């Protein structure tokens, strides 16, 4: 065979023109949501008095805190190419576990910090169960976690009993609205979790393997990565973070409440996707999610302050999310068109 391959004559110059559009696309994918956030914030600052104030900024960050804690766990799972729908159930189960183990008006428990740790441990166990069922029995993650969502709610309902358990541990009660070194406690937790997730994703074996598995699970397996083990670890972390979110929300309410997480799944998943983390896995990350959460919180806050009719607000919120998702996906639209 002495055929001359056509590609022999492709020059380096031409190769570089092939790779450049990809760079632009990636830039748009990561910068797009950030630009959207800035545009949104500027628009509200101009149109809505009371938006651009220090107090309101603090309120926005505080309101973003618990969703951030939850969304970081969700981000890791989505990076794997899986999804964790059990957030609300795990929050409820962990929140009630926490209240009933700490000093409360229902029983004589008073475990203090141990209650905090155990409650998060319950979340981690939920995550491990998710991960094990998903990897060992090979059930799609959305089915498994849909199931554990309701197991969590059921467990919380049983724990709830018939009267609302109130948190009486003064140390924890002081966290609600309290400050550490001048920073509200929930913000401290949110910041630690966000920075932690960033460092893990960027520098740790766990994080990089998560990207690898999300990029191509089969290839990762061939490379010798123990894929199942890492999946279980990631689900475990996500469960623990849902647990932490549930405990923090419970502390803020001061009571155990089965519906403590209601609405959080939609908020966190749409924040993850809005931020530019692809549901197919392997792309995106904690910083994207940070932007996504802020977009949603700013949107809710700004619309509320704008004094718009509440009926219109809900529709506007949905509309902006749809537009943002389309805008995020626009750069890859052309490619999608020819893929299949």
């Amino acid at each position: 065979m002495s055929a001359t391959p056509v590609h022999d004559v492709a020059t380096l110059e031409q190769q570089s023109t092939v790779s450049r559009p990809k760079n632009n696309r990636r830039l748009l994918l990561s910068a797009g949501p950030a630009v959207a956030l800035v545009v949104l914030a500027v628009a509200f600052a101009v149109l809505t008095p009371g938006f651009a104030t220090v107090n309101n900024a603090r309120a926005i960050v505080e309101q973003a805190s618990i969703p951030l804690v939850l969304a970081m766990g969700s981000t890791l799972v989505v990076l794997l190419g899986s999804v964790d729908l059990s957030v609300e159930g795990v929050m409820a189960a962990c929140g009630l576990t926490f209240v009933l183990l700490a000093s409360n008006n229902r029983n004589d428990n008073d475990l203090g910090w141990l209650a905090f740790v155990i409650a998060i441990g319950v979340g981690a166990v939920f995550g491990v169960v998710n991960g094990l069922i998903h990897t060992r029995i090979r059930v799609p993650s959305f089915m498994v976690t849909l199931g554990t969502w309701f197991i969590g709610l059921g467990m919380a309902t049983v724990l709830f009993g018939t009267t609302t358990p109130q948190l009486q541990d003064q140390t924890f009660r002081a966290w609600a609205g309290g400050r550490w070194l001048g920073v509200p406690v929930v913000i401290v937790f949110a910041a630690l979790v966000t920075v932690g997730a960033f460092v893990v994703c960027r520098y740790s074996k766990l994080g990089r393997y998560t990207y690898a598995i999300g990029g191509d699970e089969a290839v990762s397996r061939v490379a010798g990565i123990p894929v199942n083990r890492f999946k279980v670890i990631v689900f475990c972390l996500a469960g623990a973070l849902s647990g932490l979110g549930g405990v923090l929300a419970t502390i803020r309410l001061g009571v155990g409440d089965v519906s403590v997480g209601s609405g959080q799944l939609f908020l966190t998943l749409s924040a993850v996707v809005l931020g530019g983390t692809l549901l197919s896995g392997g792309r995106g990350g904690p910083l994207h999610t940070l932007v996504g959460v802020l977009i949603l919180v700013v949107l809710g806050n700004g619309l509320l302050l704008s004094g718009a009719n509440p009926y219109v607000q809900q529709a506007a919120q949905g509309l902006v999310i749809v537009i943002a998702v389309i805008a995020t996906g626009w750069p890859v639209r052309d490619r999608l068109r020819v893929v299949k």
Partner: protein
Amino acid sequence: MSGLGRRFAALAVAAVATMSLGACSSTNSGGGTASGQVSDDDMIMVSAVRSLTNPYEAAWVEGSQAYADSLGIDLQTIVYNGDSQSALSQLQSVLAGGKTVLLNINPNTTADTPAIVNAVRAAGGYVVTQWSKPEDINPWDVGDNWVAYVTYNGQEEGYDTTQTLIDSMGGSGGVIALQGLLANDISQSRFAGFEQALGEQSGVTLLDQQPADFDRNKAYTTTQTLLNQYGDQVTGIWAATDSMALGALQAVTEAGRAGQVKIASAADATPEGLQAIQDGNMVATYTTDPYYNGAMGLALCYQAATGALDVGSLPHEDRAFYVSQTLITADNVADYATPPTAEQIVDSVQDPLGRNDGALS
């Protein structure tokens, strides 16, 4: 138990399969006496609620239980978790059990009522529905098996609690209102009462009103945002339920303005809400007496089933009516701090029409 009663019961059960309605209503209109048509042994009581994690409904079920225990009749609790389909299918399995069902239900949505009352009627049971029904259907249109529809005057709750709130604010200042779900008619009628009370004076002005979906978290974040926007202008917060009022209280406390901002809830009288009133953090809530609600519906059904109450001859104002309720403030909160005993609950429903507060307006 008389032999006659048993025979009647056997007859009734047999009739269910063929012509239940005819059998029951004809004997009914024949003028039931103290002997009754259905014996206690052949009855089962059913209390159907949305969830047990809601303090109001948990207390309702306790009331039902106390009443059923006092008669030695089994009580089955149906919890349908906000799912109309689940409510109906669970009900149908109980109806299929063959006993005469006495049902006290808080339907999931207005639209569920016809299906529920028809299912009970077809099985020869008795039902009292509470809180919501379609306007164009009334118990007397359906027959004696739908004993009564009872509800609570939301406008009155909204009006009275707003009055208390305005008084506590010294008759001046700015107020924020937190509604429940916008599409919910109870929430709307409470808000109508709020607006009515506000309209009758000029010292207190409405700064903003937002829906918080009966959700404590949402009430918290909404209040936090509005406190930032209006700052010290806010001196009062009115919420359609205790849980939203408590969410608002948390935001107010975190803003360091506990005590300066008065908070009133229009309904529920939850233990936490009552505690907040005792502590001076809230100024008002309203109680429909959930224990009474849970027992009274069953008591009406029981009396209809035994013939103690001749449903067919009751006037319309005893078939669809408001139940009286009580405003709770710091003055009377102590009376409600401890739950009633089982005897007190049973006593309160000896005359199940005793708290009839008038026909629906």
